[in-house]
């Protein structure tokens, strides 16, 4: 496998979507190619960083409550089914 192929398959490799033969070829390439090894490592870290960042993000408690209260009001107002 060449660098170009490794990059082409990188996402599938990260997601475990390559068949056995391709996975083995990718691993062999990664063991000997420092550049591709860095690209794989840094791509995985990129994903991890964004995932961690967003775990800390959400509606603030105040907004959460006021949004929910408004929705609960709208929810209660609707007629119950077709009478």
């Amino acid at each position: 496998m060449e660098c170009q192929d490794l990059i082409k398959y990188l996402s599938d490799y990260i997601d475990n979507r390559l068949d056995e033969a391709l996975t083995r070829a990718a691993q062999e390439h990664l063991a000997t190619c420092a550049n591709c090894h860095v690209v794989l490592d840094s791509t995985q870290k990129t994903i991890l960083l964004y995932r961690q960042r967003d775990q800390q993000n959400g509606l603030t408690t105040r907004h959460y409550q006021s949004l929910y209260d408004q929705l609960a009001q709208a929810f209660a107002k609707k007629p119950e089914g077709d009478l």
Partner: protein
Amino acid sequence: MPCKISLRYVTSVVENTSNEQVGIAVTDEQALITALKQRDPTALAAVFETYADRIYRLGMNLLHDEQHADCVVQDTFLALIEHIDQFEGRSSLGTWLYRVGYNHCLNQLRKVKPSLELDSLDEPDMMPVNFNPWPAPEEMVFTSEITSELERAIATLSPALRAVFVMRDIEELSTNETASVLGISESAVKVRLHRARLLLREQLAPYFGEQFEQTGV
């Protein structure tokens, strides 16, 4: 609340896909939908608790504005309340909410940029150019500098790539679920995810490469 509530965008996206499941499932979805139809307040609370923050993050990542992201959450759940009686469960509740939330984001983006092109896949495939190693994960503590660097990098992606990256890699939806939310094929999801990852990596590489050199780890 600053949002202008508009539901006219919603009707076209209601119930248009097959029987997929969002991984982040609310247990016993059918019972939940029945309870929603009966206006059971605990059902609304459960759905809100499961999805409000997720929809908010989708809004933040696509719009970069807290107030607009709040509006996306509000409009999405109002749409649910409005349409729950017609909900037949052909798509899962989670997929449906993401789809409505995503469409609200698009409408907001189009207000700013009416010519917004979303389905363009002409962006050429890129090859990495920066091969500097990055620090170990334990070295990458979330400073405000790192946070703003992540912000800057994701803002360089087109909305089409950003949406796929957010759903697949941050919110961890499956390829199938993401395709269903965005109304594109699974292979388009894979292509976009691949590009988004490589572009983000390349954007961040100078910063983290330098971090590595400085710490010498």
